[in-house]
């Protein structure tokens, strides 16, 4: 058995039993990277040397019969917008091509405390703007299920690396679906926790009111284990919640009897690929068979979610991107005569076109003349969307939908930005309302590409979506299948 194929919980058991060492596991993953990375291009940076040193530390702990955590010795990929001390953190942008943070993100501090092993920094759409990872300034990551197709985005490198067994699990960030959609495209489990459940400190902001860090894993059990490690209040992030953290593994029960699963009216109609629809219908039937009750619900304002999302996300992004001015760190243009020229050239040369597009859109919607008509109105509709969910969760435990209207599309297929934005239609409502949502494999289309099922939970009720996802997983085998590379 190749060790790189293991899940976290499988590897942990073998480590505890001393049947394998952390070094062996890390070496296996590094070897796998050597074999397939040329094809996949999942990583911006690979930290092989440090990873092996850290593995030795874990092996010492094991040798001394110290109890080890669930994540000890487990190689992980981290999206390149999450700051890692002394390791380049680029956001896949020329702007931060050589940026080395002098600090760890809080999630990294927590994972290091658990002795998880950083294997590399994963490619992404530049500053997490995109749904295909084609917007990286450095490389295009391929989908391990079909290397002519995108892995999804913006956490495409995080998803592809796990799907290709180049990491046991990874961290992504999700602003409008950037964890769930690539997880769906790559046949993995991806969780966007409740806004505030996981600290954003050290996550390079795209949109502060929407961004969340979460795990991409090979199965639901692993997802719960990673969430256990990263969730919780952080005094460095005032938007993080003091809501008590559960042991999420207690939700791993094969039981949905009496669960009320909401299916939003109209969600399964327009724009939805037939094969995706089929898989979702089958999933609904399976849940019914397992004893859940399917409830029709209404989310009357959901149709505005995409428009609202792009106004708010761009507004916040334009502000988040302002600090990249070439003065203190990051890229600075070489030829300039005046301060204004320094700014203009630095930002023109340092940012890619999608980033510039969103900066312009964002600046427009918060400009004095348009603030009320666009931004303020979007905030109001956002409140209505939130209220829709509040009402829905009075009736149901979880809400079910596809993760994405299609399976993975071909590279270069979506040249029109609007077409690309549409692929986020099912994922953005959870970000706008701060709700937790998980994507898990629920089938394959005729091209052999994975299809994802999304379950949205109530605020801080990650346990219910984990339980529903776990039950689905226990009664299907989609998560076991691996791409052939």
């Amino acid at each position, binding site marked *: 058995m190749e060790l790189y194929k293991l899940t976290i919980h499988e590897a942990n058991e073998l480590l505890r039993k001393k049947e394998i060492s952390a070094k062996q596991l890390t070496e296996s993953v590094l070897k796998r990277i050597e074999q397939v990375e040329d094809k996949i291009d999942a990583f911006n940076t690979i930290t092989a040397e440090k990873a092996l040193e850290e593995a030795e530390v874990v092996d010492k702990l094991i040798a001394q019969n110290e109890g080890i955590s669930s994540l000890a010795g487990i190689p992980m990929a981290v999206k390149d917008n999450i700051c890692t001390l002394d390791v380049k953190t680029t956001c896949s942008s020329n702007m931060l091509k050589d940026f080395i*943070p002098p*600090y760890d993100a809080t999630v990294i501090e927590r994972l290091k405390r658990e002795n998880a092993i950083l294997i590399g920094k994963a490619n992404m759409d530049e500053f997490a703007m995109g749904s295909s990872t084609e917007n990286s300034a450095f490389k295009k990551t391929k989908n391990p299920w079909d290397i002519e197709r995108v892995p999804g985005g913006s956490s495409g490198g995080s998803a592809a690396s796990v799907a290709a067994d180049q990491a046991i699990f990874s961290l992504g960030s999700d602003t409008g679906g950037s964890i769930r959609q690539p997880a769906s495209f790559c046949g993995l489990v991806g969780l966007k926790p409740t806004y505030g459940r996981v600290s954003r400190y050290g996550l390079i*902001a795209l949109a502060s009111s929407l961004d969340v860090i979460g795990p991409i894993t090979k199965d639901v059990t692993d997802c719960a284990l990673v969430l256990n490690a990263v969730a919780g209040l952080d005094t460095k*992030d005032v938007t993080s919640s003091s809501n008590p953290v559960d042991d999420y593994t207690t939700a791993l029960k094969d039981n949905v009897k009496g669960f009320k699963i909401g299916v939003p009216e109209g969600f399964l109609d327009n724009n939805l690929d037939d094969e995706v629809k089929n898989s979702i219908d089958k999933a609904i039937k399976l849940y019914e068979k397992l004893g859940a009750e399917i409830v029709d619900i209404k989310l009357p304002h959901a149709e505005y979610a995409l428009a609202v999302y792009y106004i708010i996300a761009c507004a916040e992004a334009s*502000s988040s991107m*302002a600090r990249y001015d070439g003065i*203190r760190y990051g890229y600075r243009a070489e030829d300039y005569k005046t301060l204004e020229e320094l700014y203009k050239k630095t930002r023109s040369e340092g940012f890619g076109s999608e980033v510039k597009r969103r900066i312009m859109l964002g600046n427009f919607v918060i400009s004095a003349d348009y*603030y009320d008509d666009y931004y303020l109105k979007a905030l109001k509709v956002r409140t209505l969307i939130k209220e829709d969910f509040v009402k829905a969760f009075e009736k149901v435990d979880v809400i079910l939908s596809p993760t994405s209207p299609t399976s993975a599309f071909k590279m270069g297929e979506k040249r029109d930005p609007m077409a690309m934005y549409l692929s986020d239609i099912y994922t953005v409502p959870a970000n706008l309302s701060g709700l937790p949502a998980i994507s898990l494999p629920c089938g394959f289309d005729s091209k052999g590409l994975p299809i994802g099922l999304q379950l949205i939970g109530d605020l801080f009720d990650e346990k219910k979506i984990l339980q529903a996802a776990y039950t689905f997983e226990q009664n299907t085998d989609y998560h076991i299948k691996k791409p052939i590379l």
Partner: protein
Amino acid sequence: MEYEVVIGLEVHAELSTQTKLLCGCAAEFVREPNTHCCPVCLAMPGTLPRINKRAVEYAIKAGLALNCDISEYTRMDRKHYFYPDLPKAYQVTQHYHPLCKNGYIDIETEDGVRRIGITQIHLEEDAGKLIHDQYETESLVDYNRSGVPLIEIVSEPDLRSPEEGRIFLETIKSILEYIDVSDCKMEEGSLRCDVNVSVRPKGQKEYGVRSEMKNLNSFRAAHRAMEYEVKRHISILEEGGEVLRETRRWDDNLGKSFPMRTKEEANDYRYFPDADIVPMYIDKEWVTKLKEEMPELPSERRERYIKEYDLPEYDAGVLTSSKALADYFEECLTLYDDPKNISNWVMGDILRITKEKDIAHEDISVTPKQFTDLLRLVDEGIISGSIGKNVLEDMFDTGKDADTIVEEKGLKQISDEGELLEIIRKVLQDNPQSVEDYLSGKKKAMGYLVGQTMRATRGKANPQMVNKILKEELDGLKEK
């Protein structure tokens, strides 16, 4: 035509909190550049702000002192513009929901008390500082000040003359010092102001077009700038011209303002809520507690001085104009119980000396103990009042006690009758003409002879005794 002046002021005061508004860096003023900064106040990617509760508390105190309503809901917004001293390229400030609103202060003008409205007070962060003069082609940035908490106090356009503007600024400064939320040190940039000036024909309701001048860093500059702008506006209108709505730069060296940008060229700051800082709900009980803990304000203290110490209104006003001076006065009072005498000396001599030597009221080096000991030397007739004034100056210069100086310089008053008689007889002998004048009825000659006696003793002679002995001697001559 007669014009009415309309002035509105915005006062920026750095709060004297220990740490910055959004991170744990020390907020104190330091000269060594870039020593008080961290990833947060340098706006490194991924870092997040944490609001300083003490800064919110100080801003609320300022709001209470300026009779404002304290908002129950308040929030931070972002104000976007590019400048190297602004690391995030946005300033965290309050645009939509300021912390304090609808206040006022009363200012004492020559025409009596005037009530000036306070539109709002909002909390914000300061920017860093650019240093232009070290290299010819490059500028340097110092981020020590980046993120230091500020309050901006915005007045209603209620001020009707540059003089009122000046008094308003001084009153604000004094209040902030009293409640101890700002050092108000203009030379360190902890107090700055923007002035908005317009004029309109007397009786007209609508405001005239206003010009704005930003970042005036002394009251004197602000006062001069207001006066200049008033004159400029009036002369434009007199010539039938039109005042432009614009921001102008004040050059204090030249004593002139220059156009900086017009309204059309003005930045669109794209204000919007800062999602990294959660909205704040201000607890009413907290505000009540702060209100109860409020120290005495200058106006209250002035009233007390009039009532308790029986001081004239003028004295009370001068003494309470700065907290440091009033504190000094009160400390003297614990050691010496003649308020009016202290007041005379403080207003006359201490203020004259501090002004001449450019000493801040906080930095008066003569302690209340030293000062009141001096007053006692005068009271006891050991030195004369006029010698006392010189001794006080020496005390400021040397830091020595009054009795040491009196001893060292031999300034003790001569009150020995025999000694004085001898000196006076000599004076009479040397000035026969004056003696004759006096005897022939010219009483003025007496003053001259007193002067000569004081001169002969280098001012040390006890003046009452000199008068008495001289009179006796002259009257004695008359009888002969």
